[in-house]
């Protein structure tokens, strides 16, 4: 199972959703944002090294923490040397070993956003309940359509209680609403999934429901 977490623009909470979705699915999260990595890295080979054919994909996965992660380097030289077209094969290799993979995609409409979508069986689109964020989400949805990756779920992040039918109809997928959550923000600042900090908070429950929905969408 390979799920891409995407967004039309930055700052909507895409990496937070990717890390937590991976935790709930017991998946490896791959930080596929080659020029603006956002997930915790640490030392050792990273996705830049793997895409430059300097490291083995499976050996670059750190699986000692609460979520197994294939981190991405932060250097410009690394981003320049990485061959993003190799991402699909890398994701396939990690999936063979770990079975489930969540890809944290870059925002935007260029090939760096398109390639992780192409490498996935389905995607989750993260957005906020504002006009600008929703317009960008529509464009991200078109990009997923262009690379023929179905949209499994929309996450409306940090949204107050509201009717989401119009958004679901416009984007063409069911909506999971994530409430504003101090627990979730605090956990993310420490690079941890919310389940390790506040397993019973409302945001953690919603993320579990999101993982269940994505799981059953991909099974059917």
């Amino acid at each position, binding site marked *: 199972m390979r799920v891409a977490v995407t967004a039309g623009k930055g700052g909507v909470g895409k990496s937070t959703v990717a890390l937590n979705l991976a935790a709930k699915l017991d998946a490896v999260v791959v930080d596929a944002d*080659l020029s603006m990595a956002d997930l915790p890295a640490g030392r050792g080979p990273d996705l830049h090294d793997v895409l430059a054919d300097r490291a083995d994909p499976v050996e670059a996965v750190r699986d000692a923490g609460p979520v197994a992660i294939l981190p991405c380097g*932060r*250097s410009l030289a690394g981003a320049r040397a990485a061959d993003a077209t190799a991402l699909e094969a890398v994701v396939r290799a990690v999936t063979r070993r770990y079975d489930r993979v969540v890809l944290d995609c870059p*925002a935007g*409409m260029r090939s760096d956003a398109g390639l992780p979508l192409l490498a996935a069986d389905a995607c989750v689109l993260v957005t906020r309940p504002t006009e600008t964020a929703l317009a960008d989400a529509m464009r991200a949805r078109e990009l997923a359509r262009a690379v023929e990756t179905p949209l499994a779920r929309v996450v409306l992040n940090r949204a107050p209680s509201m009717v989401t039918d119009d958004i679901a109809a416009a984007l063409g997928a069911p909506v999971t609403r994530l409430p504003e959550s101090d627990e979730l923000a605090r956990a993310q600042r420490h690079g941890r999934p919310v389940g390790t900090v506040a397993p019973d908070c409302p945001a953690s429950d919603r993320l579990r429901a999101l993982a269940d929905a994505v799981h059953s969408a991909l099974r059917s």
Partner: protein
Amino acid sequence: VPAAGWDETGFEGVVDGRRALGYATPAELADQPARIVDASPVETTTNQPSDDPTPEDVVRALGDARPPREAVSTEETSDKRDGAGQPWDAPETQSERGPPPELEAWLDDIEVRLDTADRLATAGSVEEAADAVAAVGGAADVAALDERLTADREALARVRNRCDALAGRTDRVEIPVETLARLA
């Protein structure tokens, strides 16, 4: 990623009637800029390209998103690892050309609060008003939202003044890039 049909040895493609071909090269002009090395009929039934997009298709259609070569210092860019660039470095990524995500997120937060306030302000019936208040959390939260929006208004005004001042300066400033390059 080279354009479809090209590799390091040349171009291979199907000619259906006629076909235009162009390329750029730093070499001198030549009388014979291209040479046909092979021509054979194609099996149209076996040579159909697949409809599934490939990674190369994606890069061709959307462009190479790697940082340009000029942006990468020839020395190892270890100073960039901690994000410790200089404020006058050229924008490195698409997102650095636009407002930073943190600013966008802050503006999104205000927009969400304003949308909530709009729903409270436009409730047409007692039921609608009760629903809108319940969605916020209760009467105390309505008061908190009102206070927060007052703070938002002041913060936005401060940012607007700063933006106006900086935008005015970016309009007026002119660096004599070529002159300085000659001096250096």
